[in-house]
């Protein structure tokens, strides 16, 4: 019985730790390099399309 309680409390702590790492990062501000990368990809594509069309 005591062993079961210990396991279920360990299970709860496992869930909490999993969520903690994930949520810590998920709620952090995203580094600029990623939004910049998306903008660069968009610009590059726009430039190449204009090139083809022009």
């Amino acid at each position, binding site marked *: 019985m005591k062993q079961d309680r210990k396991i279920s409390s360990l*299970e709860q702590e496992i869930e909490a730790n*999993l969520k903690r790492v994930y949520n810590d990062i998920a709620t952090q501000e995203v580094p600029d390099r990623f939004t910049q990368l998306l903008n660069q990809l968009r610009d590059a594509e726009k430039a190449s399309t204009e090139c083809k069309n022009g």
Partner: protein
Amino acid sequence: MADPRDEIVEHLSAMRAFAVSLTRNSALADDMVQDALVKAWTKIDSYQEGTNMRAWLFTILRNTYYSHHRKARREVADTDGEMAASLAQKPDHDGRLQMRDFNRAFEMLNDEQREALVLVGAGGFSYEEAAETCGVAVGTIKSRVNRARKQLVELLQMSDDEVMEATDIVTTGIVTNQKNVA
């Protein structure tokens, strides 16, 4: 018509969270995200509009991991590194299970168990979504998650016993004194 790629930005933080959870290494995780973004951008045709974009992005992310970064993770794997150290500063509410112990145990799971556990246990994915993301049957995801949980419990039970003995300063003090006396 709206470009579905405009939606990618909304999933950046989740992509990082998944990558860090998978690798426990923030530098490696960010490299993974970067590679996955380039791939997602150029392969947008393979995304079916109206379907789960996060699952689609996570699929690309995990493929990036398996094809390019898995080896690097093994080489730089350092559960006592920067990430683990910063998280270890924050003990759980009852201060019993330290993040460091958790990370050590988590590190011992195989990649497939780790990703299934992160998707379902932290990312809020349903078993169906996780199965779709990993390209396996729902039953496979369920069994990976169950086995991962069971293995963590076993590993943590072992380290838990050690921790209980080792972190009790008073006990440690008494043991040390006794050793000195002897």
